[in-house]
């Protein structure tokens, strides 16, 4: 049986079949939760904001015109909700400075003797968490959520060129983090796939 398209589900919810909204929640909860988690590191808080995102999206569902992918529309709500949550609570998003990052890396010299896929995922996830919040969000949107640079620009309300530069720099930083954390063993992470 083929998977229902997002736009079809949206249409049936708009026609009154509220229960179908659960399909969209199931489909996107982990992505929304991860994206918000890049900006709000506290797990419980991130989960509350993620729930708020789905409630907001439900209330404004009639405003989804299908001009973009449903996921792009949803991630835009996720981004703006997370940012306004940070502003409302006067929380500064985590922007790691180089000195702190250096200390972290010095104290965290891992030994990677036997890498498997799970180790690789853990390693890369840990490395992403060391990035500045906005870089981590862009990396997550690009690689995990499968958004194009144009779509990320729409989500974050930044220029496309700005996103391309940020993405390139974030990738470089990530590479540095992986290599500084794992030293020569970083090659094992790359190769043993």
């Amino acid at each position, binding site marked *: 049986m083929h998977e229902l398209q997002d736009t079809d589900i949206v*249409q049936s919810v708009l026609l009154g079949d509220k229960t179908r909204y659960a399909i969209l929640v199931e489909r996107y909860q982990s992505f929304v939760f991860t994206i918000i988690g890049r900006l709000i590191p506290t797990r419980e808080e991130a989960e509350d904001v993620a729930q708020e995102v789905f409630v907001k999206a439900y209330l404004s569902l009639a405003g989804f015109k299908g001009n973009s992918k449903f996921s792009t529309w949803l991630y835009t709500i996720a981004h703006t909700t997370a940012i306004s949550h940070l502003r409302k609570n006067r929380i500064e998003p985590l922007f790691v400075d180089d000195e702190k990052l250096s200390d972290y890396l010095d104290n965290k010299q891992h030994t990677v003797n036997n890498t498997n896929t799970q180790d690789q995922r853990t390693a890369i996830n840990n490395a992403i968490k060391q990035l500045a919040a906005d870089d981590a969000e862009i990396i997550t949107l690009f690689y*995990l959520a499968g958004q194009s640079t144009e779509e990320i620009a729409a989500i974050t309300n930044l220029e496309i060129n700005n996103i391309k530069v940020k993405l390139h720099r974030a990738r470089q930083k990530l590479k540095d983090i992986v290599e500084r954390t794992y030293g020569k063993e970083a090659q094992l992470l790359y190769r043993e796939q």
Partner: protein
Amino acid sequence: MKQEERELDELMRKLEAEQPSMRFTKNVMESIVGLQIAPSAGRYINLLVVRSIAALLVLSLVIACMYVLISPGATNVPFAYNKLTSHIPHSYAWYIVGFNIILLLVLAELWLSSKRRIKYLERMN
């Protein structure tokens, strides 16, 4: 792209999303009970626009038919028709026909897309 960058890229594509708690979907669905979807700020296609296009189509079709079928000098047609068509230059007839075809296509697209949507929703329900 350098070999190292490509390898990092491949590694990145193995990223996995973090999972919220098991009750997440249930919590969201409970939160939306009793909530009503806010009406859209405006219809995607205004009904007035559709009706105006249809009216324009009918009107220009009538004029085109009158011009093509009734010769400007004919004596067996009402005076008003005769007077109206005699003022339209002959070369404009093609513009009117072209304009009508475009209007017809726009209306057909609107009609077919609404029909497709209804069919889809009927199948889903």
